[in-house]
């Protein structure tokens, strides 16, 4: 899932202070699970903004709302008219949600209430850990299921480097050395010999380096377009 963390109230305040009517809009999927931007946190941020406004002597209406997901229009369409009544939408969805919603609110700006951090897992309740970088060309079958792109500080394809230190990375004693983990794991799996093969340099065009990415499932898209056309000829509107 996508993991995020709330922005400090001071930063949020600087974004919202000049607006009269603010909606803090929560997203109840990934960022709710990590307690950063679900409906609950949206209400919390709304309360903090109101308190700050009161401290600063500003007259402001701050409400909150939440929908299941900001990244699919069907989820927020039922409330979009309500959303558009505000001067500002502070979205506590991930960056995906902020962008997606921003295109659909007409003249109402959408600002981010949280920082989108990484793709991660719930290591323990309240602890979230980055495990994938979304590079577009997965190779973890060659590395014992452990991703060197996301988990090695240098994104080394053939590690470890000299900075490995008793299983930890030189950047911090709190960060595991991904390549140490890979060796441990592959030893356990009995596949350590595979590591003797050199992983060739990556083609990073599948990742961010290739520019913004888009995947279009042709069979679904074509079907949907045909259906839409049918409805239009029938005089209806989807």
């Amino acid at each position: 899932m996508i993991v995020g963390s709330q922005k400090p109230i001071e930063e949020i305040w600087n974004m919202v202070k000049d607006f009269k009517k603010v909606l803090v809009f929560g997203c109840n999927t990934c960022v709710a699970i990590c307690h950063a931007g679900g409906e609950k946190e949206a209400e919390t941020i709304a309360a903090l903004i109101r308190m700050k406004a009161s401290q600063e002597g500003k007259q402001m209406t701050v409400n909150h709302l939440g929908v299941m997901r900001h990244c699919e229009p069907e989820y927020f369409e039922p409330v979009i008219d309500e959303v558009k009544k505000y001067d500002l939408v502070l979205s506590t969805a991930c960056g995906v949600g902020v962008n997606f919603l921003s295109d659909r609110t007409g003249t109402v700006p959408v600002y981010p209430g949280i920082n989108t951090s990484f793709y991660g897992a719930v290591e323990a309740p309240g602890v979230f850990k980055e495990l994938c970088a979304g590079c577009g060309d997965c190779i973890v079958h060659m590395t014992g299921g452990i991703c060197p792109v996301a988990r090695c500080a240098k994104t080394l394809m053939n590690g470890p480097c000299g900075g490995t230190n008793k299983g930890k990375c030189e950047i911090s004693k709190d960060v595991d050395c991904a390549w140490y983990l890979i060796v441990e794991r592959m030893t356990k799996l009995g596949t350590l010999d595979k590591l003797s093969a050199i992983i060739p340099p990556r083609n990073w065009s599948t990742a961010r380096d290739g520019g913004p990415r888009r995947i279009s499932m042709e069979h679904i898209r074509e079907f949907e377009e045909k259906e839409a056309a049918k409805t239009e000829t029938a005089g209806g509107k989807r």
Partner: protein
Amino acid sequence: MAPEDTCTAEPYRAYGAELKETRPYSPCRAACPAHTDVEAYVGLIAQGKYTEAFEVITSVNPIASVCSMICHHPCEQSCRRCGVDEPLAVRHLKRFAIEKSKDYRRAKRKLVKKTKGKSVGIIGSGPSGLTAARDLADLGYSVTLYEKHPVLGGMLAAAIPPYRLPREVLKEDIDDVISKGVEVKTNFEIGRDAKLDDLAKKHDAVLVAIGLSQSRSLNIPGVDGPGVLLAIPYLEDVAFGRKPDLGKSVLVIGGGNVAMDVARSARRLGVEKVEMVCLENEQEIPAWKWEVDEAVEEAIKINYRWGPKAVVRENGKVVGLEVTKVLSVFDANKRFAPTFDTNTTTVLKAETIIITIGQMSNLAFLKDSPVKVDERGRVEWNPATQMSSAKNVFVAGEVVTGPGSAIAAVANGRRAALAMHLYIQGETIEGRLPAQEKEKIAQMPSEVVEKISKQPRMKIKHLAPEVRVKTMDHFEMGYSEAEALEEAGRCRGCGGGAVVDQKKCMACLTCMRVCPYGAPVVTSVSEIRPEYCQACGLCAPECPAQAISMVSYDVREIRNTLPTIIGKVDADRQEPVIAALMCTHHAKVIGVPNNVKAIPVHCTSRIDILDMLKAFESGADGVAIIRCGSGTCKYRDIEPRVNARVKRVQDLLGMLKIESNRLEILSATSDNGGNPYSAICADFSERVKKLGLRARK
């Protein structure tokens, strides 16, 4: 009597009432024939909301005061606390709430507008008749209540001895009903003062709710003549203060609850030697166990397993009863079929014998009426419509259901009222009356039972047996407020717990991780199993999607009401405004210094971080979260979660440059016997004062 003004009776609905109808009932509620929402009213009592509790009780039961004294409380027998320690003392709590609401109920008595333009006649003013009268009056019908005795109440007034049911208690219930504008015709005996047909013509619908007002007798030698009495005429004498001459010793034939009333009232009439004789043994005796125990305490001897053979008379005067040894009472199919050892007989000595072996209705008035009576002498009726064989004549209560409890008659009276309403409005009745059996939540699983701390039932005090047998006065002492609050706190809130909004839940597992009782199961969404849920409310404030609500209370209530409770904050105040969100569950008193705004909560588990923020947002200078005294929380694993919430809010306050120590978590002092909040609130207030009063621009 009824005040001049009128009202349209709107039934009171407790929070969650609609939702509860869609879910399995708590076992107490399912067991109550009238389906009184016990969980709701006990919860209200625990919060000190006594009049709201009264509304919940009386919404389904107009003779609630009566039931608070005499109900056999099947709710208690089915209480899920039985599996933990002892059942909740529901009846005593009901009595407490009703007694606390005396002024309230009197003040709200009003005529109900007769909006329907139709009239109903109700024959008999016992539990079912009174109930139907109340419900039909509330619906806007003109109601006439016909009663053969000089006072209303049926058997409640004419047969139940005052030591069990003080008449002023009964009067409160009756006054509630008649204040709605019910016309009362007492000393009116159907068949003697009017024919049923006449009433059926006069009214749009008639209800026959005459109960079982005749005692059955025995066909044994010597039974006729002085010294042998029947239970009902005897009890009527007792009820109306006449003093029947019983001689020096009384023998009561029968082992039911009415027999107990007969024997125990005989003791109170000054008879030293009162004995009972019944066919059954100690396990089989039909009277409630507490009735038997209290009778024995009052020095009443029960002769078990003897059957009456003949009344023994000397010179016409009763000297005893010859009895035969009983071998068995029931056959293999548990049907009543007593067998006797005719060779073993004895004589039980007594100067008066009172026969209490059952009752029947006097149906003489039905002769030549269209209401059919079956070959066994019972009124023919359709339980699905409450109708007799005559078109606008309805029936309710013991006359058709046979002997039962007052609360069962109330439930039947309610059904009949609804049926009459549907009939008069020209609607179909069949299939429209509420189901009498309701689905209830399952037994508490053993792994949950193990997690529930034991807390003994708050005992009720009785007058000592030697004192109470000297008068007809009521002998059961009610709860004090402290006792009632403590007892109400024992309720596990079955059926009032957490519900997940499936449209909002994204199966994040938070509730499953939080719940101390293992109630949530998360698959595609979370489902909180009601048989596990203890309604502590710990999960709802933790849900990141705000997908959890509670059946028995509004999870947003605290933050919605806080601005009003705190009110306008005076800029020139000298003392800090403190919001104290306090667990009142075991505290027994609610009282704090003047500058402290008390917000009672059922448990600190229910306090959301949003509630704490709202208190500051509303202008509080300091916020105290006060948990109950150490070791008294009736839930488990609450503290760490609440501590974490407080810590989070303290961090957030820091971000707003508000001193984090304006928010503190405190413990009620439970050992000084005084107000457990005063001192800690005062101390906290002093600490906040030193931090200064919060300025607002």
